[in-house]
């Protein structure tokens, strides 16, 4: 036997055909793909696709004709664009049904009941209150439209050859677009409806008991034991959504996921989680199924949304920071746990909570490690959301550069949008788009981490891991996650931008997979909290090494992202910055 053959690890793990219906990873894939299949069939098979295609073609023809007619985007061009944006598959009967039965408690300020129930009278009162602002915004939009039309007519009368008139018309049309957006936002606030989410929540709880209970039964555990305790897990999740929907809590970035962990831990570490609830705390099953569904939202076509500068800021700096932070954690800070090190590194460099979940599941990190990473991310996100835009404003940094910096460094997407809004609309759009490109990276990150763990971390010293061993050890749900991502990316590209937006983004994703993905992650965090001990958690924080790692990694991230954003947006591609 050659030396290389001797070094191949003996296959300790085994794969059996029965794994396909008894192992959590596979069951998460089947359940995730069942939901994906239902969403795709509902929106593509029975949905409004046939109705959308001619509408999109008609709008595209108008836009083509307008593009040939004028050197700027005309009023008719934008009107056709708006017509395309109005097409949403989730407005179909199926979309409304799914949306109704997966509703989570809403936002509230002073009265928690508002999160569950709003009467007709309350809705009416809100609409009456918001109506003057809407009417004012609507009148301004009408006025701006008239001015835009007039300016366009003047430019047209000069056969669109007078650059001064063309620029003026272009500027008027931009003003109209801004006024129109304000009117649309004001209309939303004046179109509140009555609701009662309680029956939907009861139905949803029963639905989850059936789908997850079936999986638990296939894993050889008791369906009844799961069903009995699940009510508590679901109740904690609903309470977490309720508290996360409170205005102050939202302002500080403390959402349902964080509340789930906190409430769960509060119960577990005071009165104690009842023993009969523990069989329902199927943390990994919830997370893995949620991740397979998240794959449907990881669309590779999104990475070109802002051209090459976005790729450099989000896809070059991010992996560099991730790898450097991990090495720093191992070699310099001497992190006691490799899994905690990689989860914090991914959480901090990629995109916060979602990256932490995906990475933790891919490297089989402990739930305390995931909790700790997310906790660190929440604290730093809340600080950076305020401090970073304040610093950018104080030093007079350009809006686009500030937006790109924010997008590449703040962890959570919502906080990125909030920080960007401080600097202005353009900064908010650039920041949010950079973050979106970074979000898409979690698929690659999860796959690479899972592979690295199989090949290097979990192997015996000085042994080469054979392909069969890699297969045995590889977390299979990652393949489901990637398969969903590739499937949706292919469909997204094949349909084209407009039809994909109407059927995938505003249909199968927003009207299907995303609704349940949110619930699955929230359930998993409540389950984590209910089964976590404060003392165990404190053990992972000993010496403050996770904090040091986060601070060092984030400092590097801040420096590299700023340099790359400046080089890309101001030195290499200044024309893109000028057009934004």
């Amino acid at each position, binding site marked *: 036997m050659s030396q290389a053959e001797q070094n191949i690890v003996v296959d300790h793990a085994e794969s059996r055909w029965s794994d396909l219906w008894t192992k959590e990873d596979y069951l998460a894939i089947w359940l995730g793909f069942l939901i994906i299949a239902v969403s795709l069939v509902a929106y593509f098979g029975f949905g409004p696709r046939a109705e959308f295609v001619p509408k999109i073609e008609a709008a595209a023809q108008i*836009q*083509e004709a307008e*593009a*040939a007619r*004028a050197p*700027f*985007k005309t009023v008719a*061009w934008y009107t056709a*664009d708006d017509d395309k944006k109005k097409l949403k598959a989730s407005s179909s009967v199926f979309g409304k049904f799914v949306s109704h039965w997966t509703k989570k408690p809403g936002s509230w300020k002073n009265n928690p009941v508002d999160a569950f129930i709003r009467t007709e009278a309350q809705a009416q009162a809100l609409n009456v209150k918001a109506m003057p602002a809407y009417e004012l915004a609507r009148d301004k939009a009408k006025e701006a439209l008239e001015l835009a039309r007039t300016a366009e007519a003047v430019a047209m009368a000069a056969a669109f050859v007078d650059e001064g008139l063309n620029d003026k018309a272009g500027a008027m049309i931009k003003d109209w677009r801004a006024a129109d957006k304000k009117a649309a*936002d004001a209309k939303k606030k004046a179109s509140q409806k009555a609701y009662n989410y309680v029956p939907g929540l009861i139905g949803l709880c029963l639905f989850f008991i059936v789908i997850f209970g079936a999986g638990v039964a296939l894993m050889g555990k008791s369906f009844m034991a799961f069903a009995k305790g699940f009510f508590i897990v679901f109740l904690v999740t609903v309470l977490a959504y309720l508290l*996360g929907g409170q205005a*102050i*809590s939202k*302002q*500080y970035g403390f*959402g349902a*996921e964080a509340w789930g962990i906190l409430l769960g831990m*509060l*119960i577990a*570490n005071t*009165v*104690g989680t*009842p*023993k*009969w609830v523990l069989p329902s705390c199927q943390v990994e099953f919830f997370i893995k199924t949620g991740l397979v569904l998240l794959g449907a*939202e990881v669309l590779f076509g*999104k990475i070109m*949304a*802002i*051209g*090459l500068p976005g790729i450099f800021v989000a896809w070059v700096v991010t992996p560099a920071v991730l790898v450097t932070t991990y090495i720093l954690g191992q070699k310099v800070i001497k992190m006691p746990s490799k899994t905690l090190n990689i989860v914090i590194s991914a959480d901090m460099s990629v*995109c*916060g*909570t979602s990256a932490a979940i995906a990475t933790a599941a891919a490297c089989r990190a402990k739930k305390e490690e995931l909790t700790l990473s997310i906790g660190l991310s929440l604290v730093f996100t809340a600080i950076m*959301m305020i401090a970073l835009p304040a610093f950018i404003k104080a030093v007079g940094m350009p809006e686009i550069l500030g937006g790109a910096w924010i997008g590449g460094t703040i*962890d*959570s*997407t*919502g*906080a990125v*949008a*909030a920080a*960007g*809004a401080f600097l202005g*609309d*353009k900064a*908010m*759009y650039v920041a*949010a*788009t950079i*973050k*979106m490109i970074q*979000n898409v990276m979690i698929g690659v990150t999860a796959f690479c981490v899972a592979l690295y763990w199989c090949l290097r971390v979990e192997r015996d010293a000085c042994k080469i891991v054979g392909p069969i061993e890699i297969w045995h050890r590889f977390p299979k749900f990652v393949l489901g996650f990637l398969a969903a991502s590739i499937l949706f990316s292919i469909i997204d590209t094949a349909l084209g931008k407009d039809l994909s937006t109407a059927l995938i*983004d505003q249909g199968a994703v*927003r009207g299907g997979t995303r609704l349940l993905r949110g619930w699955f992650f929230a359930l998993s965090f409540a389950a984590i909290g209910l089964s976590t*001990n404060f003392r*165990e958690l404190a053990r992972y924080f000993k010496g403050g090494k996770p904090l040091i790692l986060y601070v060092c990694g984030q400092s590097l991230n801040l420096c590299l992202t700023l340099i790359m954003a400046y080089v890309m947006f101001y030195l290499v591609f200044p*024309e893109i910055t000028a*057009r*934004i």
Partner: protein
Amino acid sequence: MFAPARVGSPPPRQRNGDPMKSLPLRLRDLCVALVVGVGFFQIFLPFLTRSVPILQETAVLLEKYDIDPSRYYYTDVRQVAEGEAYLRSALVRPDGTTCSSLH
């Protein structure tokens, strides 16, 4: 759950091995934690927001733009779709072509 310790049997223990506290003590701990939590989120944070101008400005902006900073993925944040549409509109010419440096 909450089963009282029986005479002759070993005292109930928590999952970490420590002896289980009595129910009144555990309920007291829960109440204390809830009071601290409610105080922090309902009294301290609103006070902080009112006292620090930049935090007040944040609250106004979040309301104005309807942004939820606690949302972590891009599909959960409306401003991402708006940003994508804005950039597409700004970077793509009316006829759908882009300048070579974009892609």
